[in-house]
């Protein structure tokens, strides 16, 4: 019992050292039917093939062979009421076409997250259990529309009264998937007591990042007079990259009823490269277009067209490492309770910076000014895009319970609190929405039919409301790095599973 108290104390200290958050940042909320049902408190349980994610050491104590498949259905249900105002000290404001004061929702999507894997006991190195699994350690996918110069209460058509045909159907969004193909191995080092496990990962990152930036009009007055002072730039960055990751863990059966666990995750940076589609919606002003003294470059900035071209891009995805502790206690033959604490080094992640090269498809005149550097505007169409963040490390605490009603039905319940890495920064954007300490509850059950297991678990995650005010330019590149306003969020996730033991 003293061990249990000590372990619980360590977990509590770890939890308290990370005061406020949830699958923070863009980390996956977990996998596996039992683990999800227990709120993620599974590291010291780790008794099925999904231990590959939580603690590979658990493989060592799996006596049979397992094959499993999960399908997670995720619905991000976010709200954003923009207050995107460039305001001077005297209260003059401008939204540049952002739909201020309107409650906006992310695109309605039910996202699916398939996960599969198996574990087999092989007679290598003395009964080592191996497993191969594929899952997503990092995943996020939301899309928004929040720019409409003709929106109610916005009417910004003085900028360009005929641009609707050019506005992209999906204006900002982030679809980031990091899939891990993991080879796991777990082996007992002290029979029935201590096991160690390791997982070697091949990572594949796919990124589709839609962004809207306002670039300062480089021309002089009156060409850049409001409402033409800022030019909207829409980008769609679509690419992928490969990398490696490493998981390791230890599981110690301290007593017959108490398990203690520790695990760590070390993903390496992934360089994502691909192509970017640019769309610049230029101001429209017929009078200035016809004006005497207007040259070809001037005309480009008042003609009202859309300038579209492509380029290659490269960005570095800096993935955070994490460390976690776990405790599981078997109260009786039917009930097991567990508690985990995880600490993720989100401060390592610095945002995304897209480096653009080899622009193609520029209109000839734009191409000339871009490559010959003959105008101050030469840099305008070739600027890199940076979305910096200053995130903090974040902690997560998970509590869970498993109750075997009988040999056919197992009930699961869990609760977790997860800190936001962006809790102290103002670079909040709808693309990575993590408003604060999240609270998640989950429940579900598993039906055991012979060698088959069928499960269903649902989880609801509640985010605190936040309001961000003021425009932020973190890296002083004249590009606003946040979308201020009021944010609300919640997430619904349902996981269905099928497993087979043999």
């Amino acid at each position, binding site marked *: 019992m003293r061990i249990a108290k000590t372990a619980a104390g360590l977990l509590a200290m770890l939890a308290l050292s990370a005061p406020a958050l949830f699958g923070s940042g863009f980390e996956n909320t977990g996998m596996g039917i039992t683990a999800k049902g227990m709120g993620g408190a599974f590291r010291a349980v780790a008794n099925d093939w999904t231990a590959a994610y939580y603690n590979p050491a658990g493989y060592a104590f799996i006596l049979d062979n397992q094959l499993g498949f999960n399908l997670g259905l995720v*619905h991000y*249900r976010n*709200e954003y009421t923009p207050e995107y105002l*460039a305001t*001077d*000290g*005297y209260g*003059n*404001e*401008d939204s540049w076409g952002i*739909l201020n004061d*309107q409650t*906006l*929702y*992310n*695109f*309605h999507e039910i996202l699916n997250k398939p996960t599969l894997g198996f574990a087999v006991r092989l007679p290598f190195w003395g009964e080592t259990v191996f497993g191969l699994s594929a899952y997503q350690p990092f995943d996020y996918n939301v899309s*928004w*529309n929040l720019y*409409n110069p*003709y*929106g*109610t*209460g916005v*009417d*910004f*058509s*003085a900028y360009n009264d005929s641009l609707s045909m050019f506005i992209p159907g999906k204006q900002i969004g982030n679809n980031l998937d990091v899939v891990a193909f993991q080879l796991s191995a777990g082996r007992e080092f002290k029979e029935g007591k201590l096991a160690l496990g390791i997982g070697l990962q091949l990572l594949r990152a796919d990124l589709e990042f839609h962004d809207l930036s306002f670039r*300062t009009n480089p021309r002089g*007055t*009156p060409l*850049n*007079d*409001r*409402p033409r*002072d*800022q030019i909207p730039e829409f980008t769609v960055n679509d690419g992928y990259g490969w990398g490696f990751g490493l998981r390791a863990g230890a599981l110690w059966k301290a007593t017959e009823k108490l398990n203690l666990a520790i695990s760590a995750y070390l993903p390496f940076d992934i360089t994502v490269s691909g192509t970017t589609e640019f769309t610049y919606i230029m101001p429209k*002003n017929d*009078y*200035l277009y016809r*004006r*005497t*003294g207007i040259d070809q470059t001037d005309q480009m900035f008042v003609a009202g067209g859309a300038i579209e071209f492509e380029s290659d891009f490269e960005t570095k995805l800096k993935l955070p490492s994490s460390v976690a502790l776990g405790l599981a206690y078997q109260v009786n033959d039917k009930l097991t309770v567990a508690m985990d604490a995880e600490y993720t080094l989100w401060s390592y992640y610095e945002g995304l910076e897209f480096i653009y090269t080899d622009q193609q498809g520029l209109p000839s005149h734009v191409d000339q000014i871009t490559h010959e550097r003959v105008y101050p505007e030469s840099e305008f169409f070739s600027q890199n895009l940076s979305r910096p963040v200053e995130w903090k490390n974040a902690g997560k605490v998970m509590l869970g319970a498993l109750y075997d*009603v009988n040999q*056919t*039905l197992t*009930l699961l319940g869990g609760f977790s609190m997860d800190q936001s890495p962006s809790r102290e920064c103002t670079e909040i954007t709808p693309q990575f929405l993590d408003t604060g300490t999240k609270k998640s509850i989950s*429940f579900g*059950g598993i*039906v055991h039919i012979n060698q088959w297991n069928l499960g*269903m*678990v*649902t989880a*609801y995650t509640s985010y605190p409301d936040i309001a961000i005010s003021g*425009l932020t*330019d973190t890296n002083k590149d*004249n590009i606003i790095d946040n979308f201020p306003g009021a944010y609300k969020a*919640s997430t*619904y996730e*349902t996981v269905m599973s099928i497993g087979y033991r043999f």
Partner: protein
Amino acid sequence: MPRYLIILALLICAISMIIFVGCDDRGTGVTTANVSKYGIDPGGDHAIQPELTYQIRNPQEMLLGTVYIPEVAMPPSSQPVPLLILLAPEYGNRYYFFEAGLEEIANEMIASGEIDPMVIYCVGNDPTFGGFFYGNSYANGSPNNIPSGNYDGIIGDKLVDWLTHDYITAIIDQSAKRGIGGVGQGAYGAFRAVLKHPGVFSSISVTDGPLDFNGRDDASGLMDLFQTVIDEQSAHFIGSDADTMPFDFFYHFDSSYTMPVSMMFVGGALAFSPNDTLVEFTRYTTNNVITVTIDARYPIAADTFPGGGDSSTFVYNVITDDISGHDFDFHLPFDANGSSGASNWAWSRWLSNNLDSLYMQAGNGVFDSTKIWVATSPCSKWNYHEMTTSWIEFLGTQGDSVEVHNYSGHGYSDVSGDEYTYDLLRKMLKFHSDNFKNN
């Protein structure tokens, strides 16, 4: 039924309920405006004689304007509404305020009830010569037939008369329901119109402009820009093909768009210090071709050049009327050294058109029935802020109250031009509407 099956059924029901309730499709929340397009009259022009008969490059004698007409003033209701006249800045034409979002702002503010409907007549300035300050010179107490036109007989006079009696839209013919405003040079024009026609307008709203030509200390204001003009001209000449020629500042003077300060002084000189006025033409039309013959030309005053005038400020060979072929020479308010001098004839003509001079001519109390709103920013171009605040101080000494709105650039765009017209238009419309309501 076994108990575990009941539990299982309840579990499935609970999960299904959460999914059903929590995951319905809300759409994106993006709404689009449903603001009806009411009346925009892009051809709200009016031929005005004789005030514009001799205006250079205006053979049709047209005052060019574009008009915003609110829905209630259109048929079938045709409800009479107040009138606001807005004057464009030195480089703005009749579309200036619409390019800055006037239509959208007015529609939105009227729809929300923030302002009452009003007809807004936008007068274009002349961008060719930097604008004529919406003014004109006088000789022997009478306006002259000068190339800038005689705006004093138009802005607060014939234009108002035409709009309230002859224009297609019903407009309330009461000075209490009539306002005027302007930006930059239009600000000067707005004040000038009120000073020349007291009691015609009950409200005036302006942003920074040349409101005190010689500044707070009688030695700044526009005077600080004299050297800028010389620098513009010198830079242009030295870089030209003619740089091997001896530089004659006043002979080679250029008024192209790339020299905006020079342009403004040309326009002002044509209005305030033309060399010759009272040019009498005969114009006749044959087969739709307008022909003008010069019958006589008279100097604006006995001391103009040639014939005893100030040769040091004389600019000639610059502007020729494309119909009459007549050269319109003028005097800049400074000489080739950038000096006006106490005895400079041309500068004295400008100062007689300075607002404080016009105020003293009109007499104290000229603004008693007119509320004044002025937006000013330390970042405004061309000393406009200093001139504006000096004018505000002058009005204060005369006992006239001014509602001052200070503004500045935000972190991403300083006030170097008219970046804030879009913002300030809202405040100007609100100011006039509130005044109309209270009258």
